[in-house]
């Protein structure tokens, strides 16, 4: 059994003798590990950002929209059919076990006026469940009461962008704005959500009770019909089940025969965004895979240098064998040497990778996320590279004939 501390000492001394050579060999590993860490940090940061955006849209979200309709041979797009109703929304909420809650929506754009300011925005007629569906909190004020919906009160909740454009620095609470010339009283202001994944400003919205929207703003919607129903499933796992339940329920409610097509569309928003997240995850893995190729190249550099080192130190190997070193002792010595090279390189690479990722986030303003896992993984991988590429030179050394090795000049 070889003595570990003294073997490490011997290896360190051998590496110190050829400082430049050791440093250059390490550089391969340093770059490899550094690249893997930076790439993982950037990739993780990107997919994290997407996850955050998914959360701003609302988690576990499903959208139900009317199907298309045909008027005198002209097929209108999806949503043109006014066959979804508020009672459909109620039914989905009450009868589908995987659904947490629903919010019906009718919407349209409208000009809004406050004092001498005006602004065009999208007005959504909905009910008190909307905020829960979209995981939205209020910056100030209150949500709709059920009563507001029932009696079509002229109250509204404003998004941050609308507040900024109409009120400037004034407090909007309890002020009266005019939507399509109809006065509405501001009862709440939404917390800011920022841009959506598609680059839309999510804060450029106004919520009003759906009944009031139908009666006062968007008369083209028949009473009780909705443009879409937003559904929140109980959990991410229940999304698909919720989707199936909604389809079954609506087919039943709309009396659609077994061979007929749906007269509505169900879109699983979260799933779409999860796909985007998955894509970015694959992308980051791909980046890391490319980076790990450089780690592999670094490993080949180690192998190269270890082979040179074994040849240079043939005589030393002979001496060690003559005084009793077994094959295993020689092999261990050289593997440890390769391991030290790769681990020191790995350590420096980890530090450099973190620094590079931080610089990217500071100067290029990229979102980064350095996980302990990625650090441990790339450091461990560098160690594996050392053992793997150190093995052949070490094996070669251990097979030397002591007599020939001693005579080697």
């Amino acid at each position: 059994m070889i003595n570990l501390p003294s073997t490490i000492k011997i290896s360190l001394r051998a590496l110190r003798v050829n400082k430049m050579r050791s440093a250059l060999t390490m550089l391969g590993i340093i770059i490899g590990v550094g690249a893997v860490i930076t790439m993982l940090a950037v990739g993780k940061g990107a997919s994290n950002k997407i996850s955050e955006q998914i959360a701003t849209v609302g988690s576990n979200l499903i959208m139900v929209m009317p199907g298309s309709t045909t008027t005198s041979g002209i097929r209108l797009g999806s949503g043109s059919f006014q066959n979804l109703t508020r009672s459909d929304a109620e039914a989905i909420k009450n009868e589908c076990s995987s659904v947490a809650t629903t919010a019906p929506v009718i919407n349209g754009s409208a000009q809004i006026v406050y004092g001498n300011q005006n602004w065009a925005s999208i007005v959504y007629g909905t009910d008190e469940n909307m905020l829960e569906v979209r995981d939205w909190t209020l910056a100030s004020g209150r949500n709709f009461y059920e009563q507001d919906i029932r009696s079509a009160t002229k109250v509204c909740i404003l998004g941050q962008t609308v507040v900024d454009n109409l009120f400037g620095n004034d407090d909007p609470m309890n002020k009266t704005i005019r939507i399509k010339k109809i006065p509405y009283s501001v009862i709440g202001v939404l917390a800011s959500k920022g841009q959506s994944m598609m680059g839309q400003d999510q804060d450029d919205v106004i919520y009003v009770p759906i009944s009031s929207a139908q009666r006062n703003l968007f008369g083209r919607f028949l009473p009780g019909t909705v443009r879409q129903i937003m559904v929140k499933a109980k959990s991410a796992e229940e999304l698909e089940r919720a989707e199936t339940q909604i389809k079954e329920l609506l087919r039943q409610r709309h009396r659609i025969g077994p061979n007929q097509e749906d007269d509505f569309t169900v879109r699983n928003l979260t799933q779409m965004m999860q796909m985007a997240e998955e894509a970015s995850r694959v992308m980051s893995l791909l980046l890391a895979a490319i980076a790990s190729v450089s780690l592999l190249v670094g490993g080949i550099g180690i192998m190269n240098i270890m082979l040179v080192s074994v040849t240079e130190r043939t005589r030393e190997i002979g001496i060690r064998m003559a005084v009793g070193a077994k094959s295993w002792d020689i092999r261990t010595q050289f593997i440890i040497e390769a391991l030290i090279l790769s681990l020191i390189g790995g350590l420096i690479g980890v530090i450099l990778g973190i620094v590079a990722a931080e610089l990217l986030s500071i100067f290029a303003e990229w979102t980064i996320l350095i996980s302990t896992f990625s650090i441990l993984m790339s450091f461990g991988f560098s160690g594996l590279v050392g053992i793997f590429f150190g093995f052949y030179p070490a094996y070669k050394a251990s097979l030397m004939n002591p007599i020939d090795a001693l005579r080697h000049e």
Partner: protein
Amino acid sequence: MALIETDQLEKKYEVGDSIVFALDKVSLQISSGEFVAVMGPSGSGKSTFMNVIGCLDEPTAGRYLLDGIDVSQMNRDALAEIRNEKIGFVFQGFNLLSRTTALENVEVPLLYSKHIPKDRKDKAREALKLLGLEGRQHHNPNQLSGGQQQRVAIARALVNNAPLLLADEPTGNLDTKTSIEIMELFVRLNEEKHITIVLVTHEPDISIFSKRIIRFLDGKIISDQENKP
């Protein structure tokens, strides 16, 4: 009791079509405590003999008992263990590890022993002291004279308390005065510590220090006699 006993020891090399016998049925015994000089011109087989009894090389035929153990059929690692425990080597070119202090050089065999002694530094220091090198412990080989280097090598050969010391032209790289000092050292080790010494040399001046001279020619022993001063 015989420390070294060979029976019809044979080592042959095939060079093209012809077969060369480096050792041709060599049978001899060397008892514990002897000081033997092995002589012969180059190519006579004395170096091969040295390598085989030093367990660095395996015979192609015959038997070799070292300290009563048949080592002729052992594998590499078993031979390495035998070398570590039973044999100390002294070479012509000293063969010290460069950029390694005298103390660490002497310590090397202890690092490969079955049970690495905890007091290996003390043992190495003791061996160096025995050879009058206590002040040179932390010198690297390139800071030592030839004679001093050879004494470090001898200390390394002794540190494991091996019963057999094999010296292959130990004075070949040294001047006459230092050669005599080294040889006197061997005599002292042989007489005081009862270490068996087998010495390969082609210089008659060196062989006179031994008690028995074996001459090789063409792989055979041609004479084996006591050395009478």
